[in-house]
């Protein structure tokens, strides 16, 4: 018996599609970005003891009627002040003036006590404002980094408005205001 010429086909594995996306035993998803933002923000902190007044007491030497030379008040501390970004600290102040005597006093008298207010602890150079100066270029200082710290606000360098020889008019209420501002720097 002759074996017929067998046309047995050899292994006929089909060619795999060449352009198929690479399949793999390992699959990866991501990286999924997770994002957020923190705005520039300043917070002035809180005053210690919640006492926001510099109490100077009696302003004059009762023997002379002139301004006391030893006027002083402890500084106020703003605790927990912070800025998340570069900031400017600025200070402004209004002179200590008689509340009830608003007219210009007569000769020999003054109703104004000048002083210098300073905010320190925030910048290398404290911000200062002298109420008797025509200009106060040092009243705004910049901090180049985010910062958290205590700001110490003090007053000093008192002088009598109009001249040291003037006497202060009588009034139980002399008032001045110191304002400290923290702001995000542009």
């Amino acid at each position, binding site marked *: 018996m002759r074996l017929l010429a067998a046309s047995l086909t050899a292994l006929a594995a089909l060619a795999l599609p060449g352009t198929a996306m690479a*399949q793999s035993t*390992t699959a990866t998803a*991501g*990286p*999924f970005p*997770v994002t957020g*933002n923190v705005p520039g923000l300043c917070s002035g902190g809180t005053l210690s003891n919640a006492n926001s007044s510099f109490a100077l007491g009696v302003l004059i030497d009762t023997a002379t009627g002139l301004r006391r030379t030893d006027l002083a008040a402890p500084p106020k501390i703003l605790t927990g002040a912070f800025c998340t970004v570069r900031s400017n600290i600025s200070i402004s102040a209004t002179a200590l003036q008689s509340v009830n005597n608003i007219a210009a006093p007569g000769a020999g008298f003054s109703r104004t006590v000048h002083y210098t207010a300073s905010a320190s602890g925030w910048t290398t150079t404290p911000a200062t404002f002298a109420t008797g100066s025509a200009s106060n270029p040092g009243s705004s200082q910049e901090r180049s980094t985010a910062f958290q710290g205590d700001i110490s606000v003090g007053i000093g360098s008192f002088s009598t408005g109009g001249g040291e020889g003037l006497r202060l008019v009588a009034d139980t209420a002399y008032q001045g205001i110191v304002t400290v501002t923290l702001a995000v720097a542009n």
Partner: protein
Amino acid sequence: MTSLKATAAALALLVALPGVANAQSTSDDATVDVSGTVAGLCILGDPSRTSVPLGQLINTSGPQVGKLTAISAQTINLPNSFCNFAGTNLRVSAQALLSSDTNAVQTGFARAVNFTSTVSNWATQNATVTTAAAAGGATPSAQGTGGTQPAPKIADLTLTLNGFTVPSNLLLVAGTYSGSVTITLGPAATP
């Protein structure tokens, strides 16, 4: 008598047939073997979203002003994820959010937000990891591996981000923050 001899000679030419075995008729079988293969394959489904924007990260007022605000859990779904072979697991790797400002942080500040990532619904033990970046941004990367799934499986996977924290709950420096999460599904045995 001579004709008889001739006849006898002719008769001697008896054809002796070879003995043919009287075989029974039977069927005959032939076989065509058919074979193929299916390669091991894992596919993660198309994610329900491709990024996780958290928005503003800090409180702008109140006792926690400047610090990380409450952030609700964030999820990404990967439906119809599958592996067609046994012995697979999930790996999740995460990068803590870091501020784009790379300067050293001031005292009292951080530039990192850590969080926990969990991928669930694959094996009995979920894949989870919590980043542990330092306030200054060091060591922001972390990864975790889930349990081994012992059979082929097709399932909807869920990635959950939660537990957002800032080291020591410090103030956060201003800026744009970014981190990331990556999911890998594949054989559990290291090759």
